[in-house]
C-alpha cells in the first residue's frame, strides 16, 4: 500500500508544483483586480488543502513552501538551499556541507562558515539514546533511517573546509583545531592497522602552526611520512596554494541484500596536476607546481570497514537464511502435495509446510539490510598543495594537466585571501555541480519518515531554524 502511495505523493508534488507555477504566472493579472474577500477565501482553501495533504501524505514540504523559502536565495546556491530545506534534519549534515562548499566557491563566506559550523555541530553530537539510531540498527528498518553524519572521509573533509575558512580569516588557532578535528575523524577505523594518513590535514595543521608562530615541524614531518614528497615549506614561504582536482567518489550498494557500501571512483576528468602562476604587482611571475597531498578516493577506501558493516552483515545473513528456509519449505510442501495426489495426510502436511514456508519468505522480505549510500557529491578527488613567498599583492591563476599534457580547462583566476602573516589561494579544477536533491537518499525511507509525527515536528523546527540561520549568515 505504501508503495502505491509513493507515486501518488510524487504526482501530487508535481501537480502542486505546476499549480504553484500557474499561480506565479497568473499573479500579475490577479494583482490588478485583487478582491480581498476572494483572496481570503483562496488562502483559507489553500490552508485547508495543505492540512489535508499533511494528514494524508505527511509534513511536506510542499512546493509553495519550498518556493517561498527559496525566493530570496541567490540562484547559484538555490539547489543546495532547496536540498537542505527538503531533506530535513535527517540529511542536514550532508546538505549543510554541500551548501557550505558551494558558498565557498561563490564567495558567500558567511553562509559557508555558518553552514560548516552547523554541519560540524551535528557531526560532533553524540547519539546516546536516539530513536532513529535504533531504527537504523533494527532488523526491519533500513540504515538510511539514521541522521546522516557521513563516513569518516566526508566528516574529515567538512573539518578541512572549515579550517580553510578559518585560515582565510587569519584565525590560525581555530584553523589548526579544525584540521586536527579532521585528522581525528580519519582515525575512525574498525581495524587497528588503519591509522590517520590524511597528509593534507597534517600539512595544514603544520601550516596553521607556522602562521601562528608555533613549532610546525612535527606536523610537517607527519605529512611527509604519510605522503612522501609533501615536505615542509621553506621558512620564508607565506602563501599556501591549494588546488582540488576532479570529482570525489560516489557510493553504491553491493552484496546479495545490498548490505555493503562500495565506493565508485568518478571518471571523466584527466587532470592529475595543477600549476599556479602568481603575478605580483612588481617583479617576476612565480610559477608553483603543487605537491600531491591526499586523494579523497583513497581516504574513502582505506579505512578498513565500519562497525555498522557487522550489523548489516548480520541483517543480511538473517534475511538470506530466512529466505532460504522459506523457499525450501515452500518447495518441499508443494512437492509433498504433488506427490500425494491431492488427498490424505501427506497433502495436508505438504500444504502446512508450504504455508509455513510462504510465511517465512514473507517474514524475510520485511527485513531490511540495505546500506546507507547518501554521499557528498561535490567533493574533489585529489588535493594538491604548494607554497610560495611573496611580499606584495599578486594575481593568481591556475592551470591543470593530466598524464598526457595540459587539460583543456580554462585557467581559473583565483582570488588570494591576503592575511596578516599568511595568504591562502584555493581553487578547483572543475566547478561545483551538485544534485538538486540529497545525493543517494532513499526516497521510500524519506516518504515513510515524512508520515512520522515526531520526525515531522523535528523537521518543522529544523525548517523554522533555517530562517534564523539565513538571518545570522547574512549579517556578515
Amino acid at each position, binding site marked *: 500500500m505504501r508503495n502505491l502511495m509513493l507515486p501518488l505523493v510524487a504526482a501530487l508534488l508535481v501537480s502542486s508544483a505546476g499549480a504553484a507555477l500557474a499561480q506565479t504566472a497568473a499573479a500579475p493579472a490577479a494583482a490588478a483586480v485583487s478582491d480581498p474577500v476572494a483572496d481570503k477565501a483562496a488562502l483559507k482553501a489553500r490552508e485547508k488543502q495543505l492540512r489535508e495533504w499533511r494528514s494524508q501524505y505527511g509534513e511536506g514540504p510542499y512546493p509553495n513552501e519550498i518556493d517561498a523559502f527559496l525566493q530570496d536565495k541567490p540562484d547559484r546556491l538555490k539547489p543546495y538551499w532547496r536540498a537542505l530545506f527538503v531533506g530535513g534534519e535527517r540529511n542536514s549534515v550532508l546538505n549543510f556541507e554541500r551548501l557550505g562548499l558551494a558558498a565557498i566557491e561563490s564567495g558567500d563566506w558567511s553562509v559557508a562558515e555558518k553552514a560548516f559550523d552547523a554541519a560540524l555541530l551535528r557531526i560532533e553530537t553524540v547519539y546516546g539514546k536516539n530513536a532513529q539510531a535504533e531504527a537504523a540498527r533494527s532488523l526491519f528498518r533500513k540504515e538510511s533511517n539514521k541522521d546522516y*553524519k557521513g563516513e569518516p572521509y566526508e566528516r574529515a573533509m567538512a573539518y578541512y573546509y572549515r579550517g580553510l575558512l578559518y585560515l582565510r580569516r587569519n584565525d590560525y588557532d581555530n584553523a589548526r583545531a579544525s584540521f586536527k578535528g579532521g585528522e581525528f575523524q580519519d582515525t575512525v577505523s574498525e581495524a587497528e592497522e588503519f591509522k590517520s594518513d590524511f597528509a593534507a590535514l597534517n600539512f595544514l595543521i603544520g601550516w596553521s602552526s607556522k602562521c601562528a608562530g608555533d613549532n610546525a615541524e612535527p606536523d610537517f614531518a607527519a605529512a611527509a611520512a604519510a605522503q612522501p614528497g609533501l615536505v615542509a615549506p621553506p621558512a620564508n614561504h607565506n602563501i599556501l596554494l591549494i588546488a582540488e582536482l576532479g570529482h570525489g567518489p560516489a557510493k553504491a550498494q553491493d552484496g546479495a541484500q545490498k548490505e555493503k557500501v562500495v565506493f565508485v571512483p568518478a571518471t571523466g576528468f584527466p587532470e592529475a596536476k595543477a600549476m599556479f602562476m602568481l603575478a605580483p604587482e612588481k617583479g617576476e611571475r612565480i610559477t608553483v607546481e603543487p605537491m600531491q597531498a591526499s586523494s579523497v578516493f583513497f581516504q574513502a577506501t582505506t579505512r578498513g570497514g565500519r562497525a555498522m558493516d557487522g550489523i548489516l552483515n548480520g541483517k543480511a545473513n538473517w534475511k538470506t537464511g530466512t529466505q532460504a528456509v522459506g523457499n525450501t519449505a515452500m518447495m518441499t510442501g508443494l512437492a509433498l502435495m504433488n506427490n500425494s495426489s491431492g488427498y490424505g495426510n501427506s497433502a495436508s502436511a505438504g500444504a502446512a509446510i508450504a504455508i509455513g514456508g510462504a510465511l517465512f519468505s514473507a517474514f524475510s522480505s520485511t527485513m531490511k539490510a540495505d546500506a546507507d549510500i547518501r554521499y557528498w557529491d561535490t567533493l574533489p578527488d585529489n588535493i594538491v598543495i604548494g607554497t610560495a613567498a611573496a611580499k606584495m599583492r599578486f594575481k593568481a591563476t591556475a592551470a591543470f594537466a593530466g598524464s598526457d599534457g595540459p587539460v583543456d580547462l580554462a585557467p581559473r583566476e583565483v582570488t588570494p585571501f591576503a592575511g596578516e602573516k599568511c595568504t591562502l589561494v584555493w581553487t578547483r579544477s572543475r566547478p561545483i555541480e551538485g544534485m538538486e536533491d540529497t545525493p543517494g537518499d532513499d526516497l521510500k525511507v524519506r516518504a515513510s519518515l515524512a508520515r512520522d509525527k515526531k520526525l515531522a515536528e523535528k523537521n518543522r523546527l529544523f525548517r523554522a531554524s533555517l530562517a534564523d540561520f539565513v538571518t545570522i549568515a547574512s549579517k556578515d
Partner: protein
Amino acid sequence: MHKLRIAAVALTCLAMAQPAVAAPKRGQPAVELDPNSVGTVSGTGIEMRDIIGMADRIVRDLLQRPDIANAPKPPRIILEGSRIANKSSQRLDTDMLSDQLRSQLLRAAAGRMRFLSRENIQDVMAERELKREGQTDVGTSGMTRAPAGADYRLVGRITSQDARNNTTGAQQRAMQVVFELIDLETSETVYISEPYVIVRAQRDDVIYR
C-alpha cells in the same frame, strides 16, 4: 477462564510491543540553565562551566598574591583573547575566556589591579589626536603625556590530547589550560595558574563508527 487467558496473552503482546526506549519529547521551548551546571547538552571539550570555573580560580589566586593585589601602586595588566593560544583540537573563541577573566578580575579586584586595553588602542589614539587638535575638549579627566604602559600581561595556552578506542568506539579528550602573568619589563613569569585539566569521554552510537 478462557477469556482471562486471552486477555493475559493480549496484555503480554501489548507490553512486548512497547518501544524499548522512551520516545523523545516533541520539543521544548527555551529554558534557563545554570551556566555552572553541566547543561542538557555536553561534550568532551571546554564548556561554559569550565570557563567560569577556571576564571574563578585565577581570580582567587591573584587576589591572594600581596605583590600583585596589594602592591603600593595597583599594577597595570593587559589581558586579551588574542594572547590565549588555542593549540587544542577544539574550535573555541578565546575571547570568551579573556572576557570572563577580565570581568571577574576587574570586579573582584576593586581597583587593586588595573587593566589596559590594547585591542582598542586605535580608538584611544584617535581620540587623543582629536583632543590635541582641539576638535574636542579634553574630557573630564584631563590629558596624559602618553597612553598608560603595562606592567604585566596575562597570557594563556590551551592544549589537548585526543584518544579513541576503535573497539568500543569511545572517544576521550584531555584538555589543559594554563595562564601565566608575565612581567613586561623583566620577562619573568611572576604567576602561573594551576593547570586546569579536564578529561572527558563519550561514545557515539555504533551506527556512526
